């Protein structure tokens, strides 16, 4: 266990320090996220959709596409100068590498959210009222889902010819099912749908905030464990 902590800490700190020094990914992510939000805000003005209704969808679109940037970097930097071979030759369990990379991605997305969420609040005129805890929980669960799938597939696509394009296809396909409860949960938290009307009429969603949160927790748990177990097969030579 102690050995796990030592190797985990080494990889985790290495990745954070590299990002802090190079400042390659976070600025790109944040600017891309803000651009997506603004473009969608302009489009929403032209469409007949209510601005508040679009808020949650825009938030998730921004997270997904900016998250892809962070994940692509996770292993692309290791491929340069063949650092990945060094990492794999070190007496470290592949699962430890996965957990460290995964947590770095979660932290990058958290920093990104701290900047982009207020932008969404201002531009789309939404607020969470007293539901801060639920809001942060939903964002964190979404973060974990995007990062767990993204970290595994980032390692996978390094062996292919078209890295970035392939990564986005694979990650978005697997993440499709969680986007439905995630968007619904944010609609409830923003108060766009009153809780008593959820699931009726045009808001075709059966269940309440608890159902959506339960689904997201199950999704995160299943995929994080599956990806952690399968990571060893992806990187073995």
């Amino acid at each position, binding site marked *: 266990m102690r050995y796990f902590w030592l190797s985990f800490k080494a990889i985790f700190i290495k990745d954070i320090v590299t990002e802090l020094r190079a400042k390659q990914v976070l600025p790109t992510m944040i600017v891309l996220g803000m651009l997506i939000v603004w473009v969608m805000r302009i489009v929403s003005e032209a469409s007949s959709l209510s601005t508040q209704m679009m808020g949650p969808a825009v938030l998730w679109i921004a997270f997904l596409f900016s998250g892809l940037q962070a994940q692509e970097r996770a292993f692309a930097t290791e491929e340069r100068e063949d650092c990945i071979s060094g990492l794999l030759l070190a007496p470290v369990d592949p699962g430890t590498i996965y957990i460290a990379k995964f947590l770095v991605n979660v932290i990058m997305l958290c920093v990104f959210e701290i900047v982009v969420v207020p932008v969404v609040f201002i531009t789309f005129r939404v607020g969470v009222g007293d539901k801060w805890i639920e809001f942060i929980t939903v964002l964190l669960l979404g973060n974990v889902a995007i990062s767990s*799938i993204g970290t*595994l597939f980032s390692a*996978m*696509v390094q*062996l*292919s*010819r*078209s890295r970035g394009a*392939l990564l986005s*296809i*694979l990650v978005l*396909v*697997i993440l*499709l*099912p*969680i986007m*439905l*409860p995630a968007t*619904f949960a944010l609609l409830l938290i923003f108060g766009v749908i009153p809780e008593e009307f959820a*699931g009726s009429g045009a808001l*075709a*969603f*059966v*269940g309440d905030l608890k*159902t*959506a949160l339960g*689904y997201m927790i*199950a*999704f995160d748990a*299943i*995929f994080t464990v*599956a*990806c952690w177990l*399968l990571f060893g*097969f*992806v990187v*073995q030579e």
Partner: protein
Amino acid sequence: MRRLLMFITLALLLTSTWLAFTVGEVVPSEDEKGVTVEKNILYVHVPSAICSTLCFLVLLLTSIAYLVNSKPIFDYIGAASAEAALVFTTVLNLTGCIFSRVFWGPWWTPTPRLLTSAILWFLAVAYLILRAGIQNQRHRARLCAVFGIIAFIDVPMVFISARMMRDMHPANVGFDTAWQGVSFGLSVLSILSLAALFIWLRTDILRSRAQLENEMYS
């Protein structure tokens, strides 16, 4: 053996088609006059749904088998079943679109089952794109096996997530006569044997191609 399967598949396909258009024909209710052909689509639509789910199951089993003992044959069977899954989910979605257009109006609408079948199609496509993107045979087989497992875990998650939406899709297939039940059973059997034949043939082709590649580069 393969000729026998070909013969059985052909016989089953012809018999089930003949039955579906004669004694097994689904008679539309009073307010659905003139849509018999569209209603008969269920003889292709439902078997395709069953078949594509089974193809994903085969993909999962062969993926696990490959990761456990690294025999290339499991990789070929997995790839062939993913191709079969793509074919049958395409049929499933296209027949679903025709049905939706006739009975509900729009070509596509996000209801649980339509969403589920669309995501199944995307999963099969993503698997094949990943396969096409990696050249090294061993790497390709290993990564595709990992994706096959993740894709299969995603299938029940899609089912549950889609069930959180309101449904207008007919829940279960009900039959008025015994002949309809017989022709439905036969159509399921014929589509399954067609899929088995397809997987068998494609596995052989993939294996021959891999052998050719090995000989060319060795």
